[in-house]
């Protein structure tokens, strides 16, 4: 009888986190990259919840709220930046923002 342990969830979270990272590495649309960050944060949340269950601790779930708040704040600022850029250059591709290098 296979039982789903919290390890399963955490493994899934790890996969999701990795996918998120992969997205950062291969995409150049700021919005998509930002969504990938959200993906990573969600993976973290899943880890928190699953670990909390396995450990019998509520702290994991509480932490999720804070991650959520942070994510929300980031979204606000991040989207503001993206909007500000878009208003000037009509593109969300960060590749066009590569004057600073070397």
């Amino acid at each position, binding site marked *: 009888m296979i039982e789903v342990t919290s390890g399963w969830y955490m493994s899934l979270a790890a996969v999701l986190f990795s996918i998120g*990272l992969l997205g*950062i*590495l*291969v*995409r*150049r649309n700021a919005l998509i*990259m930002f969504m990938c960050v959200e993906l990573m944060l969600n993976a973290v949340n899943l880890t928190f919840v699953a670990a909390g269950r396995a450990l019998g601790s509520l702290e994991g779930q509480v932490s999720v709220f804070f991650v959520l708040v942070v994510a929300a704040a980031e979204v606000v600022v991040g989207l503001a930046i993206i909007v500000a850029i878009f208003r000037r250059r009509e593109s969300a591709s*960060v*590749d066009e*923002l*590569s*004057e*600073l*290098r*070397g």
Partner: protein
Amino acid sequence: MTSELFVPLVIVAPLLGAVFLHFVGRRIGEPLAGWIATAAIGTSFVLGAVSAIDFIRGTGEHSQHIMLWEWMPAIGAAFEIQWDPLSALMTLIVTGVGTLIHIFAIGYMHGDERFARFFTYLNLFAASMLALVLAGNYAMLFLGWELVGLCSYLLISFWYTRPTAAAAGKKAFIVNRIGDFGFMIGLMLVFVTFGTLSFEGIFERAGEVLTTGTATAIGLLFLVGAAGKSAQIPLYVWLPDAMEGPTPVSALIHAATMVTAGVYVVARSAAIFQEAPAAGMAVATVGALTALWAASIAIAQTDIKKVLAYSTVSQLGYMFLAVGLGGYVAGIFHLMTHAFFKALLFLGAGSVIHGMADEQDMTKMGGLRKHMPVTAATMGVATLAIAGFPLLSGFWSKDEILAVAFNAGGFASVLYVIGLITAMLTAFYMTRQWVMVFGGESRWDEGVHPHESPRVMTVPLIVLAVFSVGAGLINTPFRLGLEHFLEPAFEGISLAHPPEGIGMFVLLAAISVGAGLVGLAMGGFIYTRPREVWTRFQAGFGRLWEAWATAYRVDDLYGAALVTPGRKVSEAAAFRFDLPIIDGLVNGVGRFFKETGSRSRVVQTGYVRNYGFAFVAGLLLAVVWLLIAGDI
């Protein structure tokens, strides 16, 4: 003790003269500057003579050490005077001949714009030379040794606007330095062997401390130094060039005094050479070979001073032959007589040059005896003296050397034969010179009006001529005055002597006088004839004469073998090695970092995902690292 006060003053007097003239000489001008210089060295002579009275009388101590002040106590170096008969004799020669030459120079340098400066240097030289001969340890001796080199440099290149003069001065100093290289190593060896450089500490213990090996090493190293200073094979090449200097300089430094310093050092170090017969034999051999070698070159020279220069080299060879064989008295004796007649010859030559308006080529002279009678006569005396004409000074001293060589037997017999040949050659080239200058018909250039030199020049000539004639009498087989005088200085040294007995003396004297007369006759016979005769005579020697005339091209050889390659090495080191390789490496390191930076800065592409890549790669690395460190 008067000598304790006087002897230091012997050095101080000319030094003061030099300092005084250095600062005010230009202002007091000609001829006062010259007279002041003369007074300074004359004072030295008087002081020296007074102090030496005890030695002459044979009373009092025979060796005195006068400590002035410490110099480098760690190696036993101090300003310290050793006053014994040997140094006294040298002092008297230096100051005596020096005084005469000073007087002569007042006339000779007449009109030179740096008249006072010339006497500054001369006085400085006198002081240095006196420091050399009066030194009580090798360090101070070396001080004098080098300072006379400096003065030689200054005086040779006195007419510095002549490139040849400047080059000659430099050459003299550098060649001397090469000799000093050996001398210095010798001194180091002396120091490690004895723990001091003081004569007192060395000579007293030489017998017990030295092994033959060490003594030989020291002796040979001293020979190198002496060969440099006294212009022996292979380091004699500077002396002929040194004739670029004013003639009084040639007389004083490059004939009478400085160049004999090598002989003096060997004599002074007799206690060391005593332990090293091989080194002594090396000295003698070098001397004999040099004597012959230089004499052969002298035969074919046409420059009046070059003849005398090679002659000096040759005569110094005699002295080396003597001291090398242990005939210190003979060597010093010849040193003294040579000082007189060679100084006289140079001064005479100077007088001729002066009278001929700076002409030095003998082929353009001739018949000067009518115009310059005093010069001709005095030079004639000197020529006879050096040729070993019986009863003149050169006869006694040269014969003693040859006799010593003969008496030493063995290999020295070969040296004796060489000396004999040299004696013949000497007579030949000196006669040749006298005849070419004063005899025969005049061959002057247009517009030359020879005239006798002023009194201030001729008087020293006459005085020197007197000594050239008579000085030999102080040490004859019949009355060994000099030997007795010097004996205290060579205490514990077994001196080499001529064979005993009047019969032997007469026999040997006859042989050498015969050799001399042959040379004299040949020279007189050929060079009184018209020019074509000489040419035919010279042509008879074919290439050999050519070799002699060009001094065997030794200068060219040295140039090709040492100077040019040396310069090439230096250039290679500087421009092929130092700049591109060593410095290149340094700059290369700097460039490497910059290059690395410039090349790798493209990594920073400006693309976020690219940064993310570095980020994630670093993360992975950190994770793996920790996992490995945590031993998972």
